[in-house]
């Protein structure tokens, strides 16, 4: 009797109410989970309905124009592809290098290495527009680079670096120590261990994480607005020439009051989402195909 009462006291209520509450709570959880997906689903349907009519060859080749029927996103799509390549070349090596330093070389006991880790965690959460300010102050105005493709690529590199580092560290950490010990026992130096054993084993994880990070960066708009991607560009972008990118072009169209440009923006979004989805799918395929469980 007293045990039963203590049990009720501790846990609140009797079995009948409990069952109803349990079911209601479960329904609440399911509703919460579905909210995000309902929005995602509605968003995709809405964008496709609005934009699919503008997806013609003109859209992929021509520059934007004041006439929505002649406007395209050619330079913007090429700009985004160029940015992607530049990011791959700049962000991935620096990110992997940092991850290798932190995981394989750094002494955790040292204060500067701990500071480095906190610094990277913080950078990951700095608002992207602050990176834009950095670009505006140092690259565009400071060293007088101007509003060029390289400035945009450099800023996006700094922006994705923390994400690439975190993903690479996880992949490197997943390589079991026994492999390192084995290589050392055979007389390998530290760099030989890292280069011949750790890196090859970690590459699938690093590649997956890096592709996902690049996909995030490709969709970034705010920092590019500040380093000046919002210009009319009709020619192929060059490293030190003015440029535009797909998300910026989309914003530019949204900002116009005419409905036709909103539809063009929707078409741009379809292309952007298609690029991102392809990158995501490729990353997942890579993970499933090559990742080893130790």
């Amino acid at each position, binding site marked *: 009797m007293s045990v039963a009462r203590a049990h009720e006291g501790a846990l609140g209520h009797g079995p009948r109410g409990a069952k109803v509450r349990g079911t209601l709570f479960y329904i609440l959880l399911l509703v919460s989970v579905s909210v995000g997906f309902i929005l995602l689903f509605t968003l995709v349907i809405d964008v496709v309905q609005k934009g699919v009519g503008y997806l013609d060859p003109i859209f992929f080749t021509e520059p934007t124009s004041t006439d929505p029927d002649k406007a395209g996103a050619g330079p913007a799509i090429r700009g985004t592809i160029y940015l992607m390549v530049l990011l791959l070349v700049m962000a991935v090596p620096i990110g992997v290098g940092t991850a*290798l330093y932190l995981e394989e070389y750094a002494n955790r006991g040292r204060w500067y290495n701990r500071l480095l880790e906190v610094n990277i965690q*913080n950078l990951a959460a*700095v608002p992207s527009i602050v990176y*834009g300010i950095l670009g505006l*102050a140092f690259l565009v105005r400071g060293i007088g680079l101007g509003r060029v493709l390289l400035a945009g690529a450099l800023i996006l590199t700094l922006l994705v670096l923390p994400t690439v580092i975190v993903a690479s560290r996880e992949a490197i950490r997943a390589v079991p120590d026994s492999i390192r010990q084995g290589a050392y026992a055979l007389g390998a130096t530290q760099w030989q261990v890292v280069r011949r054993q750790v890196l090859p084993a970690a590459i699938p994880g690093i590649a997956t994480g890096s592709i996902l990070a690049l996909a995030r960066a490709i969709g970034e708009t705010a920092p590019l607005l500040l380093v000046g991607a919002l210009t009319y560009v009709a020619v192929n972008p060059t490293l030190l020439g003015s440029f535009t990118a797909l998300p910026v072009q989309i914003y530019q169209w949204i900002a116009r009051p005419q409905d036709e440009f909103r539809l063009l923006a929707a078409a741009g979004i379809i292309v952007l989402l298609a690029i991102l989805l392809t990158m995501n799918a490729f990353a997942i395929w890579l993970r499933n195909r090559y990742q080893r469980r130790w």
Partner: protein
Amino acid sequence: MATQDISVGAQPEPIRLRAEGRRWSEAVVKTVLALCALVSVATTVGIILALVEPSIEFFQEVSIVDFFSGDRWAPLFEPASFGVQPLLVGTLVVTFWACLVALPLGLCVAIYLSEYARPRVRRILKPALEVLAGIPTVVFGFFALTFFTPLLQDIGVDVGTFNVLSAGLVMGVMLIPTVASISEDAMSAVPQELRDGAYGLGASRLQVSTRIVVPAAVSGIIASYVLAFSRAVGETMIVLIACAGIAQITLDPRDSVQTMTVFIGATGLGDVPTGSIEYKTIFAVGLTLFVITFAMNMVSIRLVRKFREIYE
């Protein structure tokens, strides 16, 4: 060399395990990798320098008291007025609506993933949530402006074309994965024995979730909340597209507002002359934004470290 000494036995020296010659290439590699790591330090230093220097110049022209206590923001008008309060209130109002959606729903998603979902469901749901988190913010802004706001108007909410409600709610859904993934990490770190103990006493799954797991994971949950708040404060594109208007102090979610990020974005994309007061204003507002988000990120990082220390 060392072995010879020992075999002679005159002076037994400890065997040296270090390589005889220093391998310079090893040192070079370590230096190069450390330089890579320095890039992120340089980024932080660069951000602080970029923000502080023009801000100091700004505060020489505008008193810091006027900046924080003024309630009129009109830097581009004559006479100019630099009271930042409308921007702060605007930012907080949008953030409030975003958090109203993201915090409870994110927690529920985390509880579902950690306590209810079967492994197979979890394996599908988690990457799917990542997809939601990977949608560019400019796309969410488009959705808020061209779909959600008209939807609100259709169901009888009297909102303007640019309004806080639509931007805030859509941003809230965008932030669900942020809250869910960090909270779920914390809940997964709660030892199974705590759950088993409660089930042994006859607790239901609801009771285990809400009275055992959530309290035990509370530092991680708060960390996710703080991070989501910080993200909402720093979010630019959704606000710029769906609720940017004149800077005004209003709590009415049907109005448009200006946030710190909107001001920076809208001013920075024009060709503001370097060294002008408008140009410096970007940095003063940017510094305010950076200090707020930096403080919150630090709190969040601390809290995450706390739950890691307790359970891992």
